[in-house]
């Protein structure tokens, strides 16, 4: 019976990837662009959920890892003329390094203190990006030349390629995450969320597992940041602002913390909510805010969290 449950879950996730693949051929140009952007940002949220939804650590500093990814890619391309493929790895590596350092220091704290410490690190990162204005171009940012945004024969600025690159990133992230949360390591992460002291008394070193979750989630954020820079061609300090720490939290909460697909649902929902409401009112953020409040009141577990609770208990 257990085996069947696992296969059903895997089939669902592969099905979602296949659906997104098919959508590429169907979607009108405008939505095509939005979904590509959503897929990159949903990859960011996938990683955030590993830390928040599964391990139970609420970070307010993930903009720092996203920023490390986008600047780790953009700067080496602009300053040293690295090719896009190497720059992508440089972005991921920067985020992994930064999350390791932040993790070593911030994981000494718990709860609210952890939130504040991660927030402070991210703010320090933001101010740093402004201070080194000469390289980062600060608020103004800089554009990555279209000619450099190429990996092999693929021009990443071309809409179809861009969509598929975003989908590839998302699909890899989704499958890694699915494998992780169903592994014995994933079970330990959940045990830390549920009862850290008990987990410790079963012989697990909580610090080690929390650091692992933070670094994996930092790597997801870095990969998303790096890809965002490559696909959309703009790098700037705006990606290190507090907004980019709050966004993944919101997307995950909306979609369902501790569900594998929740971040995609949440990110899509938010993007289209803003998109639709801004069509008929300038107060679109007010509508967004009210819908968030309503959702949290009636669906405190998020959209997919509620679905899992009521109809699909096997949803990972």
């Amino acid at each position: 019976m257990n085996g069947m449950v696992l296969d059903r879950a895997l089939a669902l996730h592969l099905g979602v990837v296949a659906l997104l693949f098919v959508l590429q051929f169907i979607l009108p140009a405008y939505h095509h662009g939005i979904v590509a952007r959503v897929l990159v940002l949903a990859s960011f949220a996938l990683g955030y959920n590993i830390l928040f939804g599964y391990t139970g650590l609420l970070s307010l500093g993930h903009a720092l890892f996203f920023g490390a990814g986008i600047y780790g890619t953009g700067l080496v391309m602009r300053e040293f003329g690295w090719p896009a493929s190497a720059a992508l790895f440089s972005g991921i590596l920067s985020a992994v390094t930064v999350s390791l350092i932040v993790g070593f220091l911030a994981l000494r704290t718990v709860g609210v203190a952890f939130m504040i410490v991660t927030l402070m690190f991210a703010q320090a990162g933001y101010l740093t990006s402004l201070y080194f204005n000469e390289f980062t171009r600060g608020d103004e940012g800089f554009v990555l030349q279209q000619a450099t945004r190429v990996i092999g024969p693929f021009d990443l600025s071309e809409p179809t390629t861009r969509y598929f690159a975003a989908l590839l990133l998302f699909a890899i992230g989704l499958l890694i995450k699915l494998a992780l949360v169903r592994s014995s390591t994933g079970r330990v992460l959940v045990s830390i969320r549920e009862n850290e002291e008990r987990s410790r008394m079963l012989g697990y070193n909580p610090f080690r597992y929390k650091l692992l979750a933070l670094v994996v989630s930092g790597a997801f954020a870095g990969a998303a940041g790096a890809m965002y820079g490559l696909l959309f061609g703009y790098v700037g300090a705006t990606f290190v602002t507090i907004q980019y720490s709050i966004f993944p939290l919101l997307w995950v909460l909306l979609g369902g913390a501790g569900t594998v697909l929740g971040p995609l649902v949440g990110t899509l929902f938010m993007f289209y909510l803003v998109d639709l409401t801004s069509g008929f009112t300038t107060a679109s953020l007010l509508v967004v805010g009210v819908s968030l409040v309503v959702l949290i009141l009636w669906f405190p577990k998020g959209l997919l969290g509620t679905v899992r609770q009521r109809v699909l208990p096997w949803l990972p």
Partner: protein
Amino acid sequence: MAAVTLLSARGLTRAFGGLRAVDQVDFDLPAGQVRAVIGPNGAGKTTFVNLLCGRLAPSEGSIHFEGKDITRQPAHARVASGIAYTFQITSIFGKLSLYDNVALAAQRRLISDKTAGRAAGGLLHRRTMAALERVELAPLAQQIAGSLSYGHQRLLEIAMGLALGPKLLILDEPTQGLADGEIENFVALVRGVADEATVLLIEHNMGVVMNLADRITVLNFGKVLAEGSPAEVRADAAVQSAYLGA
């Protein structure tokens, strides 16, 4: 006395401010024994086992397990090397299934046991179910642990301890809050465990202690007041005045 000493403590002390909750305790536990630690409320029993399993750091003294000094070892490392602890106040993963609760313990053992190899999935399942069967909770494996009755939660705690495959199982007041019928089952369960692991039992229920223990250590005001077989302890005048209320 021929038995190998599994765990020993020398001069073990823990002070909370001016209060010496555990005071210069020397303690030797041979492998294979069922040892009970008794004493009046506030005698330092829980503090004592918390020092042994690493949840508290001692102020003075040393602890050896299988001949190795573990005084400075963190709690999770002690568990990994074979000291399992079941909580006095039931501490399970309430939102997870019974299966996941026990699998968390069983997979810890597989991580330590490097000979188990990579293809450990089937072994993990077998060990998890075996531990649940021993406490007769196997039919409830997929149920959420938080929905169990208190007595069943205590049994789940013990299943988690068993699934760790410990060399030393520390049970902190395991029968507290259990009904008489449940206590009988519990005594039979611990007898079975004693064949494969050393058991250190903190217990208030004297019936259980007299029934199970090979030897008894009596703590009072953080010091060892007496130590001996159940019969010797029962006969000890100092113990009687301090604890048994004679």
